[in-house]
Protein backbone atom coordinates (compact mmCIF):
# COMPACT_ATOMS: atom_id res chain seq x y z
CA UNK A 1 0.00 0.00 0.00
CA UNK A 2 1.39 3.42 -0.90
CA UNK A 3 1.73 6.08 1.84
CA UNK A 4 -1.18 8.13 0.44
CA UNK A 5 -3.57 5.19 0.86
CA UNK A 6 -2.29 4.53 4.37
CA UNK A 7 -2.90 8.17 5.25
CA UNK A 8 -6.41 8.08 3.75
CA UNK A 9 -7.19 4.96 5.75
CA UNK A 10 -6.21 6.63 9.02
CA UNK A 11 -7.99 9.86 8.04
CA UNK A 12 -11.31 8.18 7.23
CA UNK A 13 -11.19 6.07 10.38
CA UNK A 14 -10.06 8.68 12.89
CA UNK A 15 -10.72 12.07 11.24
CA UNK A 16 -9.78 14.69 13.84
CA UNK A 17 -6.96 12.61 15.32
CA UNK A 18 -4.86 13.38 12.23
CA UNK A 19 -3.36 16.78 12.97
CA UNK A 20 -1.13 17.17 9.94
CA UNK A 21 0.40 15.05 7.19
CA UNK A 22 3.13 15.31 4.63
CA UNK A 23 3.22 12.65 1.93
CA UNK A 24 4.93 14.27 -1.07
CA UNK A 25 8.28 16.01 -1.23
CA UNK A 26 9.78 14.22 1.79
CA UNK A 27 11.96 11.11 1.94
CA UNK A 28 9.82 9.38 4.56
CA UNK A 29 6.12 10.35 4.39
CA UNK A 30 4.67 11.12 7.81
CA UNK A 31 1.32 11.58 9.53
CA UNK A 32 0.96 13.61 12.72
CA UNK A 33 -1.44 12.22 15.33
CA UNK A 34 -2.91 13.79 18.46
CA UNK A 35 -1.04 12.56 21.58
CA UNK A 36 -4.11 11.04 23.25
CA UNK A 37 -5.18 9.12 20.14
CA UNK A 38 -1.87 7.50 19.21
CA UNK A 39 -2.59 4.17 20.89
CA UNK A 40 -5.91 3.68 19.07
CA UNK A 41 -4.31 4.57 15.75
CA UNK A 42 -1.45 2.19 16.48
CA UNK A 43 -3.83 -0.64 17.35
CA UNK A 44 -5.78 -0.03 14.15
CA UNK A 45 -2.61 0.02 12.06
CA UNK A 46 -1.41 -3.24 13.59
CA UNK A 47 -4.66 -5.19 13.48
CA UNK A 48 -6.13 -4.09 10.15
CA UNK A 49 -5.65 -6.86 7.57
CA UNK A 50 -4.69 -4.56 4.72
CA UNK A 51 -2.28 -2.46 6.80
CA UNK A 52 -0.77 -5.04 9.18
CA UNK A 53 2.01 -2.90 10.63
CA UNK A 54 3.44 -5.70 12.72
CA UNK A 55 6.74 -4.09 13.60
CA UNK A 56 7.80 -0.82 15.16
CA UNK A 57 11.22 -0.18 13.70
CA UNK A 58 12.16 2.79 15.83
CA UNK A 59 10.68 5.19 18.34
CA UNK A 60 12.57 8.43 18.84
CA UNK A 61 12.13 11.39 21.08
CA UNK A 62 13.06 14.78 19.68
CA UNK A 63 13.38 18.33 20.99
CA UNK A 64 12.27 20.86 18.36
CA UNK A 65 13.45 23.74 20.63
CA UNK A 66 11.09 26.48 21.83
CA UNK A 67 9.34 24.24 24.35
CA UNK A 68 8.19 21.71 21.77
CA UNK A 69 8.99 18.01 22.10
CA UNK A 70 8.03 15.20 19.81
CA UNK A 71 7.88 11.45 19.43
CA UNK A 72 8.48 9.81 16.05
CA UNK A 73 7.33 6.26 15.27
CA UNK A 74 8.75 4.44 12.26
CA UNK A 75 6.49 1.57 11.32
CA UNK A 76 7.00 -1.28 8.92
CA UNK A 77 4.87 -4.20 7.84
CA UNK A 78 6.80 -7.41 7.35
CA UNK A 79 3.68 -8.90 5.74
CA UNK A 80 3.13 -6.23 3.06
CA UNK A 81 6.54 -4.56 3.09
CA UNK A 82 5.26 -0.99 3.35
CA UNK A 83 6.26 1.79 5.72
CA UNK A 84 4.83 4.88 7.36
CA UNK A 85 6.07 7.38 9.91
CA UNK A 86 3.83 8.66 12.68
CA UNK A 87 4.58 11.77 14.69
CA UNK A 88 3.23 13.14 17.93
CA UNK A 89 3.88 16.62 19.27
CA UNK A 90 3.88 17.42 22.98
CA UNK A 91 5.04 20.45 24.96
CA UNK A 92 7.55 20.83 27.78
CA UNK A 93 4.75 22.00 30.11
CA UNK A 94 2.54 19.02 29.32
CA UNK A 95 4.82 16.22 28.09
CA UNK A 96 2.14 13.50 28.15
CA UNK A 97 1.61 10.95 25.42
CA UNK A 98 -0.17 7.58 25.49
CA UNK A 99 2.14 4.57 25.48
CA UNK A 100 2.05 2.05 22.63
CA UNK A 101 3.82 -0.58 24.73
CA UNK A 102 0.77 -2.85 24.66
CA UNK A 103 0.73 -2.70 20.85
CA UNK A 104 4.40 -3.31 20.14
CA UNK A 105 6.72 -4.54 22.89
CA UNK A 106 9.60 -2.79 21.11
CA UNK A 107 8.18 0.43 22.48
CA UNK A 108 8.84 -0.59 26.09
CA UNK A 109 12.55 0.20 26.16
CA UNK A 110 12.35 2.88 23.50
CA UNK A 111 9.75 4.81 25.48
CA UNK A 112 11.86 4.47 28.60
CA UNK A 113 14.74 5.94 26.61
CA UNK A 114 12.63 8.84 25.34
CA UNK A 115 11.50 9.48 28.92
CA UNK A 116 15.07 9.32 30.16
CA UNK A 117 16.50 11.64 27.50
CA UNK A 118 13.60 14.07 26.92
CA UNK A 119 11.29 13.73 29.89
CA UNK A 120 8.34 12.71 27.75
CA UNK A 121 5.87 10.87 30.00
CA UNK A 122 4.16 7.90 28.42
CA UNK A 123 0.85 7.27 30.19
CA UNK A 124 -0.12 3.61 30.67
CA UNK A 125 3.49 2.47 30.36
CA UNK A 126 3.95 -0.43 32.83
CA UNK A 127 7.49 0.39 33.94
CA UNK A 128 8.51 3.95 33.12
CA UNK A 129 11.97 4.22 34.69
CA UNK A 130 15.20 5.72 33.45
CA UNK A 131 17.11 3.26 31.31
CA UNK A 132 20.50 4.62 30.26
CA UNK A 133 21.18 7.29 32.90
CA UNK A 134 21.47 6.42 36.61
CA UNK A 135 18.10 6.15 38.35
CA UNK A 136 18.76 9.23 40.52
CA UNK A 137 20.04 11.48 37.73
CA UNK A 138 18.41 14.89 37.45
CA UNK A 139 17.40 16.47 34.17
CA UNK A 140 16.95 15.08 30.68
CA UNK A 141 20.28 15.16 28.80
CA UNK A 142 19.16 15.29 25.19
CA UNK A 143 17.03 18.40 25.59
CA UNK A 144 18.59 21.27 23.71
CA UNK A 145 18.64 23.55 26.77
CA UNK A 146 20.19 20.91 29.06
CA UNK A 147 22.91 22.10 31.43
CA UNK A 148 25.41 19.52 32.66
CA UNK A 149 25.25 19.48 36.49
CA UNK A 150 28.42 20.33 38.43
CA UNK A 151 28.19 17.38 40.77
CA UNK A 152 26.47 14.01 40.82
CA UNK A 153 26.41 12.37 44.27
CA UNK A 154 29.49 14.36 45.25
CA UNK A 155 31.44 13.44 42.10
CA UNK A 156 32.50 16.17 39.67
CA UNK A 157 30.67 15.66 36.37
CA UNK A 158 32.43 17.66 33.61
CA UNK A 159 35.76 16.01 32.90
Amino acid at each position, binding site marked *: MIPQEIHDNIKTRFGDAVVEAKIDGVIDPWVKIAPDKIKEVALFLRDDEALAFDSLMCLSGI*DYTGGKLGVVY*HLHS*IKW*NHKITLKVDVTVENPHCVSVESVWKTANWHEREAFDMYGIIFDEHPDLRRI*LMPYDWEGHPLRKDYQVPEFYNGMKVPY
Partner: protein
Amino acid sequence: METLEEKIDARPMTIPGFGRALRSEEMVINMGPQHPSTHGVLRLELIVDGEIVVDAIPHIGYLHRCFEKHAEHMTNYQQVIPYCDRMDYVAAMNAEFGYVVACEKLLNIKVPERVEYIRVIMAEFQRIASHLIAIGTYGMDIGAFTPFLFCMRDREAILDIFEQTCGARLLYNYMWIGGLSHDVPADFAEKVKRFCKMFRGTIKELNNLLSYNKIFVERTANVGVLPADVAINYGASGPVLRGSGVKFDLRKNDPYSVYDKLEFEIPTGKGLKGTTGDCWDRYMVRVDEMEQSVNIIEQAVDKLPPGDVQSAIPKRIRPDAGEVYVRTETPKGEIGYYVVADGTASPFRVKVRPPCFVNLAVLPAISRGAMISDVIAILGSVDIVLGEVDR
Protein backbone atom coordinates in the same frame (compact mmCIF):
# COMPACT_ATOMS: atom_id res chain seq x y z
CA MET B 1 4.05 -45.25 68.20
CA GLU B 2 5.87 -42.24 66.88
CA THR B 3 5.80 -41.56 63.18
CA LEU B 4 8.82 -41.51 60.89
CA GLU B 5 8.76 -37.70 60.83
CA GLU B 6 8.79 -37.49 64.59
CA LYS B 7 11.72 -39.86 64.67
CA ILE B 8 13.64 -37.64 62.27
CA ASP B 9 12.82 -34.55 64.33
CA ALA B 10 13.91 -36.26 67.50
CA ARG B 11 17.47 -36.77 66.27
CA PRO B 12 20.14 -34.58 67.91
CA MET B 13 21.16 -31.35 66.15
CA THR B 14 17.95 -31.36 64.08
CA ILE B 15 15.62 -28.45 63.52
CA PRO B 16 12.11 -29.85 63.81
CA GLY B 17 10.32 -29.87 60.46
CA PHE B 18 13.39 -28.93 58.48
CA GLY B 19 13.38 -30.51 55.05
CA ARG B 20 9.68 -31.15 55.06
CA ALA B 21 8.32 -27.68 55.37
CA LEU B 22 11.34 -25.90 53.97
CA ARG B 23 10.87 -22.15 53.98
CA SER B 24 10.30 -21.29 50.36
CA GLU B 25 10.21 -17.85 48.82
CA GLU B 26 11.59 -16.08 45.81
CA MET B 27 15.12 -14.77 45.96
CA VAL B 28 16.81 -11.94 44.11
CA ILE B 29 20.23 -12.62 42.64
CA ASN B 30 22.42 -10.04 41.00
CA MET B 31 24.36 -11.25 38.02
CA GLY B 32 26.94 -8.69 37.12
CA PRO B 33 27.74 -5.81 36.50
CA GLN B 34 30.88 -7.68 35.43
CA HIS B 35 29.92 -11.31 35.17
CA PRO B 36 32.61 -13.00 33.08
CA SER B 37 30.24 -14.35 30.49
CA THR B 38 27.92 -11.38 30.11
CA HIS B 39 29.90 -9.95 27.19
CA GLY B 40 30.32 -6.54 28.80
CA VAL B 41 29.09 -4.44 31.65
CA LEU B 42 25.55 -5.70 32.08
CA ARG B 43 23.71 -6.29 35.32
CA LEU B 44 20.96 -8.86 35.39
CA GLU B 45 18.63 -8.87 38.35
CA LEU B 46 17.35 -12.42 38.54
CA ILE B 47 14.34 -13.30 40.63
CA VAL B 48 14.65 -17.01 41.25
CA ASP B 49 12.59 -19.72 42.85
CA GLY B 50 15.16 -22.36 43.72
CA GLU B 51 17.07 -22.67 40.48
CA ILE B 52 14.22 -21.61 38.21
CA VAL B 53 14.23 -18.03 36.93
CA VAL B 54 10.93 -16.31 37.66
CA ASP B 55 11.94 -13.00 36.13
CA ALA B 56 15.06 -11.38 34.71
CA ILE B 57 15.46 -7.60 34.74
CA PRO B 58 18.39 -6.21 32.74
CA HIS B 59 19.97 -3.02 34.06
CA ILE B 60 21.93 -1.27 31.35
CA GLY B 61 23.65 2.07 30.88
CA TYR B 62 27.04 1.35 32.42
CA LEU B 63 28.74 2.18 29.11
CA HIS B 64 26.53 5.12 28.22
CA ARG B 65 28.49 7.85 26.45
CA CYS B 66 25.54 9.72 24.93
CA PHE B 67 26.43 9.16 21.30
CA GLU B 68 23.38 11.14 20.26
CA LYS B 69 24.43 14.23 22.19
CA HIS B 70 27.95 13.97 20.77
CA ALA B 71 26.53 13.75 17.25
CA GLU B 72 24.54 16.95 17.74
CA HIS B 73 27.64 18.76 18.98
CA MET B 74 29.91 17.86 16.07
CA THR B 75 30.82 20.66 13.69
CA ASN B 76 29.97 18.56 10.65
CA TYR B 77 28.34 15.31 9.56
CA GLN B 78 31.62 13.58 8.75
CA GLN B 79 32.83 13.82 12.35
CA VAL B 80 30.05 11.55 13.60
CA ILE B 81 31.48 8.49 11.79
CA PRO B 82 34.21 7.64 14.37
CA TYR B 83 31.51 7.68 17.07
CA CYS B 84 29.49 5.18 15.04
CA ASP B 85 32.56 2.91 15.03
CA ARG B 86 32.64 2.93 18.78
CA MET B 87 29.09 1.72 19.25
CA ASP B 88 29.45 -1.85 18.07
CA TYR B 89 33.20 -2.12 18.31
CA VAL B 90 33.40 -5.62 16.88
CA ALA B 91 31.37 -4.66 13.80
CA ALA B 92 32.41 -1.07 13.18
CA MET B 93 32.19 -1.26 9.37
CA ASN B 94 28.51 -2.13 9.47
CA ALA B 95 27.72 0.68 11.90
CA GLU B 96 29.37 3.31 9.72
CA PHE B 97 27.74 1.82 6.64
CA GLY B 98 24.28 2.65 7.96
CA TYR B 99 25.22 6.19 8.88
CA VAL B 100 26.84 7.05 5.55
CA VAL B 101 23.91 5.59 3.63
CA ALA B 102 21.56 7.77 5.69
CA CYS B 103 23.61 10.91 5.04
CA GLU B 104 23.92 10.15 1.33
CA LYS B 105 20.17 9.75 1.10
CA LEU B 106 19.75 13.09 2.86
CA LEU B 107 22.24 14.79 0.53
CA ASN B 108 20.96 12.92 -2.52
CA ILE B 109 24.43 11.75 -3.59
CA LYS B 110 24.95 8.93 -6.06
CA VAL B 111 27.97 6.91 -4.99
CA PRO B 112 30.28 5.33 -7.63
CA GLU B 113 29.74 1.64 -8.17
CA ARG B 114 33.29 0.74 -7.12
CA VAL B 115 32.68 2.34 -3.73
CA GLU B 116 29.46 0.37 -3.27
CA TYR B 117 31.13 -2.94 -4.07
CA ILE B 118 34.07 -2.28 -1.76
CA ARG B 119 31.65 -1.31 1.00
CA VAL B 120 29.72 -4.54 0.55
CA ILE B 121 32.93 -6.58 0.65
CA MET B 122 34.06 -4.83 3.84
CA ALA B 123 30.64 -5.13 5.46
CA GLU B 124 30.50 -8.85 4.74
CA PHE B 125 34.04 -9.36 6.02
CA GLN B 126 33.02 -7.55 9.17
CA ARG B 127 29.94 -9.73 9.44
CA ILE B 128 32.11 -12.84 9.38
CA ALA B 129 34.49 -11.33 11.95
CA SER B 130 31.63 -10.39 14.25
CA HIS B 131 29.96 -13.79 13.93
CA LEU B 132 33.29 -15.48 14.68
CA ILE B 133 33.44 -13.59 17.96
CA ALA B 134 29.80 -14.40 18.69
CA ILE B 135 30.32 -18.10 18.00
CA GLY B 136 33.68 -18.34 19.76
CA THR B 137 32.56 -16.63 22.94
CA TYR B 138 29.29 -18.55 22.88
CA GLY B 139 31.21 -21.78 22.90
CA MET B 140 33.28 -20.44 25.76
CA ASP B 141 30.16 -19.51 27.75
CA ILE B 142 28.95 -23.07 27.46
CA GLY B 143 32.35 -24.53 28.35
CA ALA B 144 34.05 -25.20 25.01
CA PHE B 145 37.27 -23.23 24.97
CA THR B 146 39.04 -24.54 21.85
CA PRO B 147 36.61 -23.23 19.18
CA PHE B 148 37.23 -19.72 20.51
CA LEU B 149 40.91 -19.98 19.53
CA PHE B 150 40.01 -21.29 16.08
CA CYS B 151 37.58 -18.39 15.59
CA MET B 152 40.10 -15.80 16.73
CA ARG B 153 42.71 -17.21 14.34
CA ASP B 154 40.40 -16.73 11.35
CA ARG B 155 39.23 -13.33 12.52
CA GLU B 156 42.87 -12.27 12.55
CA ALA B 157 43.10 -12.97 8.80
CA ILE B 158 40.14 -10.61 8.21
CA LEU B 159 41.64 -7.91 10.42
CA ASP B 160 44.86 -8.19 8.41
CA ILE B 161 42.92 -7.41 5.24
CA PHE B 162 41.33 -4.40 6.96
CA GLU B 163 44.70 -3.23 8.20
CA GLN B 164 46.23 -3.38 4.74
CA THR B 165 43.30 -1.42 3.36
CA CYS B 166 42.86 1.38 5.86
CA GLY B 167 45.51 0.99 8.56
CA ALA B 168 43.14 0.19 11.41
CA ARG B 169 42.21 -3.16 12.85
CA LEU B 170 39.21 -2.42 15.03
CA LEU B 171 37.81 1.10 14.56
CA TYR B 172 38.23 2.12 10.96
CA ASN B 173 36.62 5.44 10.02
CA TYR B 174 36.81 3.86 6.55
CA MET B 175 33.47 4.69 4.96
CA TRP B 176 33.06 8.37 4.35
CA ILE B 177 30.00 10.22 3.15
CA GLY B 178 30.20 9.77 -0.64
CA GLY B 179 33.27 7.57 -0.70
CA LEU B 180 35.98 5.75 1.19
CA SER B 181 39.09 6.87 3.02
CA HIS B 182 41.40 4.61 0.97
CA ASP B 183 41.19 2.49 -2.15
CA VAL B 184 41.92 -1.20 -1.73
CA PRO B 185 45.56 -2.35 -2.13
CA ALA B 186 46.81 -3.79 -5.42
CA ASP B 187 46.80 -7.47 -4.41
CA PHE B 188 43.40 -7.20 -2.69
CA ALA B 189 41.43 -9.53 -4.97
CA GLU B 190 44.04 -12.27 -4.70
CA LYS B 191 44.16 -12.02 -0.88
CA VAL B 192 40.38 -12.07 -0.58
CA LYS B 193 40.07 -15.15 -2.77
CA ARG B 194 42.73 -16.94 -0.79
CA PHE B 195 40.86 -16.15 2.42
CA CYS B 196 37.52 -17.34 1.02
CA LYS B 197 39.03 -20.65 -0.06
CA MET B 198 40.60 -21.16 3.34
CA PHE B 199 37.50 -20.09 5.23
CA ARG B 200 35.11 -22.59 3.64
CA GLY B 201 37.24 -25.33 5.14
CA THR B 202 37.17 -23.59 8.50
CA ILE B 203 33.38 -23.60 8.63
CA LYS B 204 33.39 -27.40 8.19
CA GLU B 205 35.98 -27.66 10.92
CA LEU B 206 33.88 -25.47 13.21
CA ASN B 207 30.77 -27.56 12.56
CA ASN B 208 32.60 -30.74 13.48
CA LEU B 209 34.15 -29.18 16.54
CA LEU B 210 31.21 -27.28 18.01
CA SER B 211 27.93 -27.15 16.09
CA TYR B 212 27.13 -30.86 16.22
CA ASN B 213 29.02 -31.55 19.41
CA LYS B 214 26.72 -33.56 21.68
CA ILE B 215 27.44 -31.57 24.83
CA PHE B 216 26.92 -28.27 23.01
CA VAL B 217 23.64 -29.43 21.47
CA GLU B 218 22.39 -30.66 24.86
CA ARG B 219 23.09 -27.27 26.38
CA THR B 220 21.48 -25.20 23.62
CA ALA B 221 18.71 -27.18 21.93
CA ASN B 222 15.20 -26.53 23.32
CA VAL B 223 16.59 -23.77 25.54
CA GLY B 224 15.30 -20.19 25.37
CA VAL B 225 12.72 -20.79 22.66
CA LEU B 226 11.55 -17.55 21.03
CA PRO B 227 8.37 -17.95 18.95
CA ALA B 228 8.23 -16.03 15.67
CA ASP B 229 5.29 -13.74 16.55
CA VAL B 230 6.88 -12.77 19.88
CA ALA B 231 10.14 -12.00 18.09
CA ILE B 232 8.36 -9.71 15.62
CA ASN B 233 6.36 -7.96 18.34
CA TYR B 234 9.51 -7.29 20.33
CA GLY B 235 11.19 -5.94 17.20
CA ALA B 236 13.95 -8.53 17.30
CA SER B 237 16.08 -8.59 14.18
CA GLY B 238 19.07 -10.29 12.65
CA PRO B 239 19.94 -13.86 13.66
CA VAL B 240 17.57 -13.63 16.65
CA LEU B 241 14.60 -13.08 14.32
CA ARG B 242 15.79 -15.48 11.63
CA GLY B 243 16.55 -18.13 14.24
CA SER B 244 12.81 -18.12 14.97
CA GLY B 245 12.13 -19.09 11.37
CA VAL B 246 11.21 -15.67 9.96
CA LYS B 247 12.83 -15.17 6.57
CA PHE B 248 13.57 -11.48 6.88
CA ASP B 249 16.85 -9.87 5.98
CA LEU B 250 17.16 -6.22 5.02
CA ARG B 251 19.75 -7.08 2.38
CA LYS B 252 16.97 -8.91 0.53
CA ASN B 253 13.72 -7.41 1.82
CA ASP B 254 14.72 -3.73 1.80
CA PRO B 255 17.85 -3.74 -0.38
CA TYR B 256 20.40 -0.96 -0.09
CA SER B 257 23.76 -0.48 -1.79
CA VAL B 258 24.32 -3.23 -4.41
CA TYR B 259 22.91 -6.19 -2.50
CA ASP B 260 20.16 -6.59 -5.10
CA LYS B 261 22.81 -7.42 -7.73
CA LEU B 262 24.31 -10.23 -5.68
CA GLU B 263 22.99 -13.72 -5.13
CA PHE B 264 22.75 -15.23 -1.68
CA GLU B 265 20.40 -17.17 0.55
CA ILE B 266 18.83 -16.17 3.86
CA PRO B 267 19.41 -18.94 6.40
CA THR B 268 16.64 -19.42 8.97
CA GLY B 269 16.18 -21.60 12.01
CA LYS B 270 14.39 -24.87 11.31
CA GLY B 271 14.49 -26.55 14.68
CA LEU B 272 16.87 -29.28 13.51
CA LYS B 273 18.03 -30.18 17.01
CA GLY B 274 15.01 -29.13 19.02
CA THR B 275 12.33 -26.47 18.67
CA THR B 276 12.41 -23.69 16.10
CA GLY B 277 13.72 -20.55 17.74
CA ASP B 278 15.91 -22.16 20.38
CA CYS B 279 19.48 -21.17 21.18
CA TRP B 280 20.94 -23.73 18.81
CA ASP B 281 18.92 -22.30 15.90
CA ARG B 282 20.15 -18.79 16.58
CA TYR B 283 23.68 -20.10 16.75
CA MET B 284 23.37 -22.10 13.54
CA VAL B 285 21.92 -19.14 11.62
CA ARG B 286 25.19 -17.33 12.31
CA VAL B 287 27.27 -20.23 11.03
CA ASP B 288 25.19 -20.47 7.85
CA GLU B 289 25.31 -16.71 7.40
CA MET B 290 29.10 -16.75 7.37
CA GLU B 291 28.99 -19.13 4.43
CA GLN B 292 26.59 -16.81 2.59
CA SER B 293 28.87 -13.86 3.33
CA VAL B 294 31.75 -15.73 1.69
CA ASN B 295 29.53 -16.20 -1.39
CA ILE B 296 28.75 -12.49 -1.47
CA ILE B 297 32.40 -11.50 -1.11
CA GLU B 298 33.48 -13.79 -3.95
CA GLN B 299 30.83 -12.40 -6.30
CA ALA B 300 31.58 -8.80 -5.34
CA VAL B 301 35.32 -9.19 -5.89
CA ASP B 302 34.71 -10.59 -9.37
CA LYS B 303 32.37 -7.73 -10.23
CA LEU B 304 34.55 -4.99 -8.71
CA PRO B 305 34.63 -2.20 -11.34
CA PRO B 306 37.57 0.23 -11.75
CA GLY B 307 37.27 3.87 -10.75
CA ASP B 308 38.05 6.53 -8.19
CA VAL B 309 36.74 5.98 -4.67
CA GLN B 310 36.80 9.64 -3.63
CA SER B 311 35.25 11.33 -6.68
CA ALA B 312 31.79 11.72 -5.12
CA ILE B 313 32.85 13.03 -1.72
CA PRO B 314 31.16 16.43 -1.33
CA LYS B 315 33.37 19.42 -0.54
CA ARG B 316 30.78 20.86 1.76
CA ILE B 317 28.24 18.76 3.62
CA ARG B 318 25.22 20.89 4.36
CA PRO B 319 21.97 19.03 3.65
CA ASP B 320 18.69 20.91 3.29
CA ALA B 321 16.27 20.71 6.18
CA GLY B 322 14.71 17.28 6.20
CA GLU B 323 14.81 13.93 7.85
CA VAL B 324 15.51 10.36 6.91
CA TYR B 325 15.28 6.95 8.52
CA VAL B 326 17.66 4.39 7.06
CA ARG B 327 18.14 0.87 8.29
CA THR B 328 20.80 -1.59 7.29
CA GLU B 329 21.64 -5.12 8.29
CA THR B 330 24.50 -5.47 10.74
CA PRO B 331 25.69 -8.83 12.11
CA LYS B 332 23.48 -8.27 15.17
CA GLY B 333 20.41 -7.19 13.26
CA GLU B 334 18.78 -4.06 12.00
CA ILE B 335 20.57 -0.82 12.77
CA GLY B 336 18.50 2.28 12.09
CA TYR B 337 19.63 5.88 11.84
CA TYR B 338 17.04 8.62 12.14
CA VAL B 339 18.89 11.74 11.02
CA VAL B 340 17.20 15.15 11.16
CA ALA B 341 18.89 18.03 9.31
CA ASP B 342 18.03 21.66 9.89
CA GLY B 343 20.07 23.20 7.06
CA THR B 344 23.19 23.83 9.14
CA ALA B 345 26.51 21.98 8.93
CA SER B 346 25.87 19.75 11.95
CA PRO B 347 23.02 17.29 12.46
CA PHE B 348 20.03 18.48 14.48
CA ARG B 349 19.23 15.01 15.78
CA VAL B 350 20.76 11.59 15.24
CA LYS B 351 18.81 8.75 16.77
CA VAL B 352 20.19 5.24 16.56
CA ARG B 353 18.07 2.18 16.80
CA PRO B 354 20.72 -0.29 17.92
CA PRO B 355 19.93 -3.92 17.19
CA CYS B 356 21.48 -5.17 20.45
CA PHE B 357 19.34 -2.83 22.55
CA VAL B 358 16.17 -4.18 21.00
CA ASN B 359 17.32 -7.80 21.03
CA LEU B 360 18.31 -7.58 24.69
CA ALA B 361 14.78 -6.47 25.56
CA VAL B 362 13.61 -9.96 24.55
CA LEU B 363 15.79 -11.56 27.21
CA PRO B 364 13.30 -11.34 30.12
CA ALA B 365 10.59 -12.89 27.97
CA ILE B 366 12.64 -15.92 26.95
CA SER B 367 14.48 -16.57 30.20
CA ARG B 368 11.35 -16.89 32.35
CA GLY B 369 11.11 -20.47 33.50
CA ALA B 370 14.66 -21.35 32.54
CA MET B 371 17.41 -22.54 34.87
CA ILE B 372 20.02 -20.05 36.07
CA SER B 373 22.76 -21.72 34.05
CA ASP B 374 20.58 -21.51 30.93
CA VAL B 375 20.39 -17.74 31.27
CA ILE B 376 24.06 -17.63 30.25
CA ALA B 377 23.31 -19.82 27.23
CA ILE B 378 20.35 -17.61 26.26
CA LEU B 379 22.26 -14.36 26.67
CA GLY B 380 25.14 -15.67 24.58
CA SER B 381 22.79 -16.76 21.81
CA VAL B 382 21.28 -13.26 21.61
CA ASP B 383 24.82 -11.91 21.00
CA ILE B 384 24.92 -8.44 22.47
CA VAL B 385 27.69 -5.87 22.50
CA LEU B 386 27.18 -3.52 25.41
CA GLY B 387 28.89 -0.64 23.63
CA GLU B 388 25.94 -0.62 21.28
CA VAL B 389 23.24 -1.28 23.86
CA ASP B 390 24.32 1.73 25.91
CA ARG B 391 25.80 3.93 23.17
